[in-house]
Structure formats: structure tokens, C-alpha cells
């Protein structure tokens, strides 16, 4: 962890990394269980199938999933990318690329569901590619965070607790 200021935050960053790992893993399982990883399965999820339970997705139903994800996904990426960038061990160009890729995959993933339903069913290929790309960039961010935590030297008492830095008088 090149930035000395971040060393003191190792514990909360480690917890955030662990929870992001759970988030990524459960997200992957939910995608595969609900839709599958074949274009035909993804198209069927949005357009419905023959039979009483195979109704097409409604706008309301899609928005119920999309709206919370429009807040949560950028927040997770924003925090993870900031931590990786602040640590200063990656060249800025790599951070920029990682940032564009992760936000790009997230946006395509979120919008392609609406596209499959109302514009062009073949967008299911884009949905799957965006999902795989998003999970891969999230996994890369998790690995980078773990690596930063693992290589961080122990905080010394002088840099560590807020005791020595808090206001001296009120």
C-alpha cells in the first residue's frame, strides 16, 4: 500500500473487499440461476416462453431490478476503484482502463435487458458478454485490493490511531 494514509484503514478495506467478494459471487449465481449463460435462455427470460409461467418481463419488473442496481453497482465500483487508485501502485493508465471497462460492462449489462425485451432479442449475447466482463473486472479489483492489503506494512503508532491527530482543543 504505497499511500501511507491508507494503511490505517486496512481493516475496514479488508471487510469491504470480503463483502464485495460475496456480492460478486452471489450476483454470478443469481444470473446463472435466473437466466442461464446461453443466449436462448437469456432471451427466454426476458421474452417469456410458452406456458402459463412464461410471461414476458414487464417494464415495472425490469425497473424493480434496474433502479437499485443503478445506485449499487456504480457505488461499489467507485469505492473499489478509488481505493485501488489511491494506493498508487497501478499506473494511472491502467486504473483508467479498468474504470472504463468496469463501468462500461455495468452499463451495457443494465441496459441490454431492456434492449432484449423491446428492441432486439439478439442483444442477449451482449448481456452475457457484459455480465462476464463485469464479473471479471470486479474479480480483478478484488484481487488488486487483496494484494494491496497483503503488501501493506503494519501501521506504526505514530501514523495509526487518530489519538495523535485529533484536535487538541475545542
Amino acid at each position, binding site marked *: 500500500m504505497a*499511500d501511507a*494514509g*491508507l494503511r*490505517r*484503514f486496512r*481493516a*475496514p*478495506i479488508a*471487510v*469491504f473487499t*470480503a*463483502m*464485495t467478494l*460475496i*456480492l460478486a459471487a*452471489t*450476483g454470478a*449465481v*443469481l444470473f446463472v*440461476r*435466473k437466466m442461464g449463460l446461453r443466449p436462448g435462455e437469456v432471451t427466454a427470460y426476458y421474452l417469456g416462453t410458452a406456458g402459463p409461467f412464461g410471461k414476458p418481463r414487464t417494464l415495472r419488473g425490469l425497473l424493480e431490478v434496474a433502479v437499485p442496481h443503478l445506485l*449499487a453497482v456504480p*457505488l*461499489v465500483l467507485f*469505492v473499489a476503484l478509488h481505493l485501488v487508485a*489511491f494506493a498508487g501502485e497501478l499506473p494511472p493508465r491502467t486504473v483508467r482502463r479498468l474504470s472504463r471497462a468496469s463501468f462500461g460492462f455495468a452499463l451495457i449489462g443494465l441496459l441490454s435487458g431492456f434492449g432484449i425485451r423491446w428492441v432486439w432479442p439478439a442483444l442477449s449475447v451482449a448481456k452475457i458478454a457484459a455480465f462476464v466482463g463485469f464479473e471479471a473486472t470486479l474479480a480483478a479489483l478484488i484481487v488488486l485490493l487483496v494484494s494491496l492489503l497483503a503488501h501493506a506494512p503494519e501501521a506504526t503508532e505514530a501514523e*495509526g*490511531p*487518530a*489519538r*495523535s*491527530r*485529533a*484536535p*487538541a*482543543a*475545542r
Partner: protein
Amino acid sequence: MRFLLQPSPAALERARPPVRTFLAFAALLLVAEVIQRAVSGTLSPAGLAATLSPAEGERLGPVALWEEVHQGAFLYGFLLLTVGSLLVVCPLAAALRNALLAVATGAALVDLLAPFLPLALPGFSPWAGLRIAGFSVATAALLASVATAFVTFGRAPRRTDG
């Protein structure tokens, strides 16, 4: 976020009002989560078993379980990161700060992962009680962390040199 990396007295002073308002909302969120679980019946082992128990032959458990863990990991992840980071710049003993974060994190993991136990150990019935205990301890530890940060953030450290 400069006050976290460069916690000067002036920066902490400026950050105090919004930080305390945020912490009040965090406490509200935790209380609302307790009420929500109580209303949905998932604060009792029977209620939990009715919603999250794996059905016969359901190797991965119900989808509702994965959705709950997905949402829970987001919630816990952000609360523990923000409150844990605020505690770092509070004038607290490192042991207290670490203990609060460790208890909250451990209990949160029990809350999130206990419902998967019957998938690994079929017939393991105490999972529901374990989950309720994990949630209760995690909520209590988070509320204690929020209260501690609310009271001590931006305060002068207690002098120990007499």
C-alpha cells in the same frame, strides 16, 4: 474525504456535522432493518425456515436466499467500510475500534452465511438460530460503533499525561 486521510483539527471540525447526520441515518437504517425482519417474520427460526430452507433436491437453496445474501453483503459492506473508516479517525483506543469492527464483521458473516449450512450439512437445524444470533450481534455491534463514532468524532483525545 480529505478528513479521513489528513485528519487535521480544522478538517475534522468541518466534517463533524455531516458525519453525525450520516451516522444518525445509519442508525435509522439499522433499526429499520430490525423492524423489517420482525414484520416479515424472519426473526424467528420458524419464519426463517419457511422462507429460506432449501426444498427437497434444491442443491443450491432457494433463489430468495441468494437475493437476500446479495443485498445483505452490499449493506454490510458499505456500513462496515464507512463506519469502520470513521472510527479510525476518532480518538479511540485501537483495541476498542478493532474489537467493534471484528465483532460486527464476524456476526455479519454468520448472518449472511448461516442459511447455507443446511446445504453443506443436510439436516443441520440450528442454522436459523445461528442466523438470528448473527444478525442481532451484528446490529448491536454496528449500533455501538455508530454511537461511538457519533459521540467521539472530531473530539479532542483524552489527555493521559496528567
